[in-house]
């Protein structure tokens, strides 16, 4: 019979820096069961329900990031307080002052945790003064909840919303566990009102939630993880060890990895939220189908791009100050957006490249937008291919650990491209290549297909959902044990 180690059970309840809580931890299953039972038990009273959800979310945060849970609590109190001060202040100058305080404090905390060492490094490179880098750990989700705080106080300042009266709701808005680690970035004005509604899951919500959770997990835990571990990670770490063809395939692989990883997580977050009766708008919409860079940003990480548009681009003047300023604002928005992703020059370059891409996109549309030579299908295809490759090129900077590695990666593709050894390559990586192909096929499925599945699924009995979920678990367990594909380090 089973023999439970109760010490291990207790240890499981505590934060473990080596195994932070994620959706695919075994512990998450217990967490979810306990949560959903409590949530259902307190479904009648939205205040109680919010308290349950907040406590579980804070616990999730604790299991994912340890003592940093204190930061999200302090941050919630601070922004809750200052947003009320902004709201109550009569004079615009006073409102502006409080908003300024909010921006400085929120960005200051983010800056400290995320960018201190980057700037220490910068100072060390350009000055005689030398500082030792600090040992600073990054609290999980800080980039996301900082932006959520900012959008909230800015909305209050702009008079678009009234500050939330209950601190619990605000704390929940910040710490809501499904979107805590990797977003999407939600807006208080969309999120908090839903907390006060009845816990209602329609047929469509149930089916959609299930579809998003299962496909999201497949994308993240099977497709993305498999390609990452068995090809992408090691090619990007040592591009010099791989020829141009290998680097190029790894790049196409990474395009799928980043999409499946990020959108998969978002989908799971959106799906779980659906099952709680909370709707979070889609965060990704087949971005590699885009026919221009600006369309890409309407389909990729939508919650971030719309945040940047509403709170950064528009705050800088948007397109209201002439063509030059519009392009400059666009460029700066993308540059800062790039830097938001991580404290390195590579992210700044990545953002700048997208900024330039958007500028060129606008110029092209202005100059040639109305000229039609080829049939629309053909031009759409050509533009989609160009956009996809531009995005892939930018991914090199996003993924490479430093500028040298990124440049080496490009060098390999340009100067070390060869099909020599292609046979051995395909032989060794056949399953990885198949997985990449599946990733692209999934991506090319028309948006109407999931809608049809969700609609049809609504009528299926519970047993169908149980079987599919068990099928997914079996598939996941298989891939977790899949024999790793080792690099072959082609030489000839």
């Amino acid at each position, binding site marked *: 019979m089973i023999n439970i180690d109760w010490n291990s059970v207790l240890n499981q309840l505590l934060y473990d820096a080596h195994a932070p809580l994620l959706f695919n931890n075994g512990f998450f*299953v217990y967490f979810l069961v306990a949560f959903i039972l409590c949530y259902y038990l307190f479904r009648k009273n939205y205040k109680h329900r919010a308290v349950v959800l907040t406590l579980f979310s804070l616990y999730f945060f604790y299991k994912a990031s340890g003592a940093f849970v204190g930061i999200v609590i302090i941050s919630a109190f601070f922004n809750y307080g200052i947003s009320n001060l902004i709201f109550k202040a009569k004079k615009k100058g006073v409102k502006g002052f409080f908003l300024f305080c909010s921006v400085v404090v929120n960005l200051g905390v983010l800056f400290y945790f995320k960018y201190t060492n980057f700037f220490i490094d910068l100072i060390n490179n350009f000055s005689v003064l030398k500082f030792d880098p600090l040992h600073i750990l990054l609290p999980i989700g800080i980039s996301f909840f900082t932006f959520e705080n900012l959008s909230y106080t800015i909305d209050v300042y702009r008079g678009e919303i009234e500050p939330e009266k209950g601190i619990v709701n605000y704390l929940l808005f910040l710490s809501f566990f499904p979107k805590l680690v990797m977003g999407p970035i939600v807006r208080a004005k969309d999120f908090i009102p839903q907390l006060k509604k009845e816990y209602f899951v329609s047929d469509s919500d149930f089916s959609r939630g299930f579809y998003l959770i299962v496909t999201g997990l497949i994308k993240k835990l099977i497709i993305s993880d498999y390609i990452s571990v068995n090809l992408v990670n090691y090619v990007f*770490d040592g591009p010099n060890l791989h*020829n141009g063809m290998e680097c190029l395939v790894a790049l196409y692989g990474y395009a799928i990895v980043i999409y499946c990883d990020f959108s998969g997580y978002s989908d799971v977050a959106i799906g779980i939220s659906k099952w709680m009766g909370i709707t979070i708008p889609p965060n990704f919409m087949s971005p590699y189908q885009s026919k221009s860079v600006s369309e890409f940003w309407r389909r990729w990480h939508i919650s971030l791009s719309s945040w940047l548009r509403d709170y950064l681009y528009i705050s800088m003047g948007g397109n209201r100050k002439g063509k030059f300023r519009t392009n400059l604002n666009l460029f700066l928005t993308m540059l800062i957006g790039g830097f938001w992703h991580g404290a390195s020059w590579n992210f700044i370059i990545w953002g700048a490249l997208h900024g330039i891409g958007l500028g060129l996109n606008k110029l092209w549309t202005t100059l040639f937008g109305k000229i039609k030579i080829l049939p629309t299908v053909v031009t759409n295809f050509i533009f989609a291919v160009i956009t996809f490759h531009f995005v892939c090129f930018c991914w090199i900077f996003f993924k490479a650990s430093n500028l040298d590695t990124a440049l080496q990666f490009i060098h390999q593709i340009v100067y070390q491209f060869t099909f020599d050894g292609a046979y051995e390559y395909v032989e060794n990586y056949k399953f990885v290549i198949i997985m990449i192909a599946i990733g692209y096929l999934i991506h090319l499925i028309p948006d109407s297909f999931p809608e049809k599945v969700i609609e049809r699924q609504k009528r299926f009995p519970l047993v169908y959902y149980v079987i599919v979920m068990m099928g997914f678990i*079996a598939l996941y367990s298989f891939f977790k044990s899949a024999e790793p594909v080792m690099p072959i380090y082609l030489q000839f």
Partner: protein
Amino acid sequence: MNNSRKVVILILVVTIIQLSLSVFSNQFIAYYPYFKNVNLLSDILVKEKSKKGFPKKKHSSTANSIGDLPMNDFDAYEKKGTLVRFNADTVSPALQKFNEKLIALSEGKNVKIRIAWFGDSQIEGDFITQDIRELLQNYFGQQKGVGYVPITSVSSDFRKTAKVFATGDVSADNFKKQDHNAGLFFSGYSFYSNNLDIDFRDNVKKGSTQITQKWLLYGKGDSISVKINDSVRKYPANKEFNRLLVGSGVSNKAKFMVSSKHTPIFGLSSEPSSGIVLDNFSFRGISGVELKKINSNLLAELSQSGYYDLIVFQYGVNLMFKPNDTNYDYYYRGMRPVLQKFKNNMPNTEFLLFSCSDRAFNYDGTWKTAIGIDSLIQTQARLAYDNDIPFYNFYKSIGGNGTIVKWADSTVQYANKDYIHFNFRGAKAVAKTIYTAIINDYNKALKLKKANKPIVTQKTVAPKPMEAKPVVKETITKKIDTPKTDKPKPDTSKPSEVKSTTPKETIQKTTVKKADSL
């Protein structure tokens, strides 16, 4: 209809099924072994003591097949941070003649010490060796130079310490593809061209007044034609190893043209007139067995001229290409003749055998050190022991089990995510570790020298019990990899004697454009 209850039921039903399967997992796993990855109880059950694992000393498939080992001297292979010579003596250095020359160099004598450093892709792009070279050259006299550089290689673009801009039609032989009859150099390459235009740069930082010699290295053939400063001359190529001084001065560059259709060009060497020269011989994907392709006559010639003082073999990670391999007998059988060939043909040279470094595999979703690594290291140590070659436990010295996983997964990475290769940061760190072991060995020699005791001793390990191996095994070994025709030339020098430290210099002081016969 409100499906909130359906959500709860679905989650509960799936969890209950999964939990039930977990309770009966012992039975269920027989039907679906992958279930162990999703066993909900695996983290909270009382764990039985694992019966798996490979006890370091008792296990060894090789031990069983090759003969039980005397565990006293041999045990020394497990020592970390030091070069071992497999004997109880902890006072004498593992490297002897090499350390004598280092001492001579540190005393300001005009000595050149040359090290050949064999390795696989771990040292590609001069990784690790560039840092060891720098550390050694800084410690012993500040005379700099990159040493050997091939005409071209898969890592030429990546290598920072030297650049060769070679234009012209070049064909190359190498360990994996050989079209010409002439032999390969230590790099595993030979180049042929009618019109090779070479622009060479040694990027190792040196003092502005230091003179470096730039040599063209080539093998046996008809002759080569070299054009330097508009003057074309032919040079004989009647030895297995020839070199031509193509430049000497404070410049770190050399520019010339070479035509060598039938004579193998080995590469270039940029070096100080005295001091330490460390040649990087990386070849991707090999295990060392490939070195059998190097001609015995070349080895003998290099030995007679005292070209190399020390040869390091740093291999191993390519042998662990399957996660569950634990038997490396085949490697013993393949590598032993290679080491014997080198030792027999190069009596004036010392050797040092490295164990493999750490390599990890994904075992059921978790990256862990290869389970066969202890067995491989024991096999490598046995190769060293049986051939009386000093050994360095590279794996233990850099941290042992779990090191590569820790280095690849840390926020500031020291290794790549293939869990094999060190990145520039990790390469620097391991170079420091290796350098420290070399200096520790040197300090032992220095102590003996100060105490007026001899550094070079007679062989302390007389006939080793391990050499009395089953006859059958020997037969197999010979079948697999006996050198074909090359027999070692009569050895006129005594291996155990101190080698003169001067002849090399007299050879090197030749005039430009004169073939340097060794």
